[in-house]
């Protein structure tokens, strides 16, 4: 008898709950509910159509000035956190921002369509899209994964780039990257940050093509980098538009499966690069910066004081970096 009463009460309670939920029920996969619309869903966003996709992109500065293509991290982040770099436009550069394929507000694709070659081809297509004349110099500014992507591109096309600023790329080989990731995500098992990141998995999950809920969850997960106990030393959470969960998963899986080595042809790139790392990212440091950057024949190594991994985003790091970055670019302009 007690069991039947208990069950009846449970059924009634659940019925009331479901009824209450149904009144204002929202679909997590409805575009716009949890994450912003992408360029193919919102025509008012600035975009370019290149290489068979539509990228969220914009450019600042005189179109004929030397190009500075800003490449964001991730994979799966977006360029919102690098908008400080707009300042280079006031100092004589044509600054190009784009969200990589499947990232930020750029168009989403299926997981099996992503590969490293298409990411490099997108970068080349972006450069060609904004280039106005043959003699226009092209510089790359890549942060984190963006620095890895820039190096992969230079390794394949050493004659096409006139200089590069690289900010704490994880590594140019799989082993270097793995080493860095193990340190940068080395949270204590008892930490709030780690347990927040993984506890979320029982609340939100999606099938492979459900970009809205997957991107939303990935964005919540990525917030861990802004936590106080994160080794990367940021001052807080980064400004972003929308994470790209599927492209992250796809490219990361490819890296894990096939490995990579983007240093094989760097000795043909004899232009000096500016390699920056931060004072507060304890997972990176001078030792890792020296090891990673040594693949280039000529390196200007610079430590950005009073900043963490995202040293280009927060005021103190940006103030320390900008004069050095500008002097470097001007020296090659």
């Amino acid at each position, binding site marked *: 008898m*007690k*069991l*039947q009463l*208990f*069950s009846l009460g*449970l*059924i009634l309670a*659940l*019925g009331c*709950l*479901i009824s*209450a*939920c*149904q009144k*204002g*029920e*929202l*679909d*997590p996969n409805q575009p*716009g*509910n*949890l*994450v*912003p619309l992408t360029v193919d869903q919102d025509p008012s966003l600035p975009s370019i159509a290149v290489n068979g996709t539509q990228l969220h992109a914009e450019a600042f500065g005189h179109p004929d000035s030397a190009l500075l293509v800003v490449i964001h991290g991730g994979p799966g982040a977006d360029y919102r956190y690098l908008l400080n770099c707009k300042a280079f436009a006031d100092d004589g550069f044509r600054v190009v921002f784009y969200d990589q394929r499947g990232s930020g507000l750029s168009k989403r694709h299926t*997981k099996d369509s992503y590969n490293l070659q298409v990411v490099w081809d997108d970068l080349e297509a972006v450069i060609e899209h904004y280039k106005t004349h043959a003699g226009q110099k092209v510089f790359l500014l890549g942060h984190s994964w963006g620095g890895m992507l820039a190096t992969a591109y230079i390794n394949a096309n050493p004659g096409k780039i006139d200089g590069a600023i690289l900010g704490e790329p994880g590594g140019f080989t799989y082993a270097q990257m793995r080493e860095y990731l193990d340190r940068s995500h080395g949270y204590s*098992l*008892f*930490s*709030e*940050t*780690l*347990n*927040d*990141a*993984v*506890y*979320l*998995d*029982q*609340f*939100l*999950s*999606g*099938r*492979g*093509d459900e970009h809205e*809920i*997957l991107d939303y969850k990935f*964005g*919540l*997960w990525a*917030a861990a980098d*802004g936590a106080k106990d994160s080794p990367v030393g940021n001052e807080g*959470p980064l*400004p*972003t*538009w*929308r994470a790209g969960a599927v492209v992250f*998963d796809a490219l990361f899986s490819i890296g894990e499966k096939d490995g990579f080595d983007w240093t094989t042809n760097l000795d043909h790139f004899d232009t000096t690069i500016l390699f920056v790392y931060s004072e507060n990212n304890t997972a990176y440091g001078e030792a890792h910066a020296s090891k990673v950057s040594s693949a280039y024949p000529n390196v200007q190594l610079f430590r950005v004081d009073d900043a963490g991994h995202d040293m280009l985003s927060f005021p103190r790091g940006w103030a320390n970096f900008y004069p050095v970055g500008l002097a470097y670019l001007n020296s090659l302009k």
Partner: protein
Amino acid sequence: MKNSIIIIIVLLGMTVPVFAQNINWQAFQPEQKQFVQIQTGWDYGLTLGLGYGRKFNTRMPVLVNIEYSFPAGERLFDDFKVRLGGQVEVIRRGGFSATVKVYSPFRRFENSLVRLVNFGGEFSGVAGFYRKHWYVAGEFGFDKAIATHVRHTPLARETYPNARDGWYVPTGGNYFYGLQAGVSFGNSDISLKAGNLASQGWKTKPYVPKYAVLAYSYRF
């Protein structure tokens, strides 16, 4: 949504609430009708849980229980899970036994961007060989996040001002499958279960796609 409601009601109609942990039916003495439990392990995080259950002498043996667990962290009470439900032994042939479990998890999660409150439904089956002092079994189940209330913080609104707060239905689900084993002595049971997780559709998986939970139960 309608399918979810039907499934839940049908399952609850079987009068089975939930219990996450493993039970050795054969270790229960006739006079033992209740148990308390403490458990720890990896259950979407490093967790600690407490539970209470009661056995009913119906045509098929039924256990009803409630369980509270929470993950480690500086803020111990912002994230938690309460499971209410039970299990019924549906088959017993000699040492072989099969048990059906139905849970109704209530979960809460909070970080700097969002607060989530979720009502779920968890259905699983366990089958294996049981003796008075030990058992070993396999389990397979599905944990559906049926309805999740999302409330964004001001910080989240700096990222996306138009994010909509409210009840999202459904918000996913995960399969789980693995092995469990236990030993019983006196009034006590010690059990261990471990296995893998995969998200619905089998195309994605949780950040840590494993679970492993160690439990101690005291029957009285």
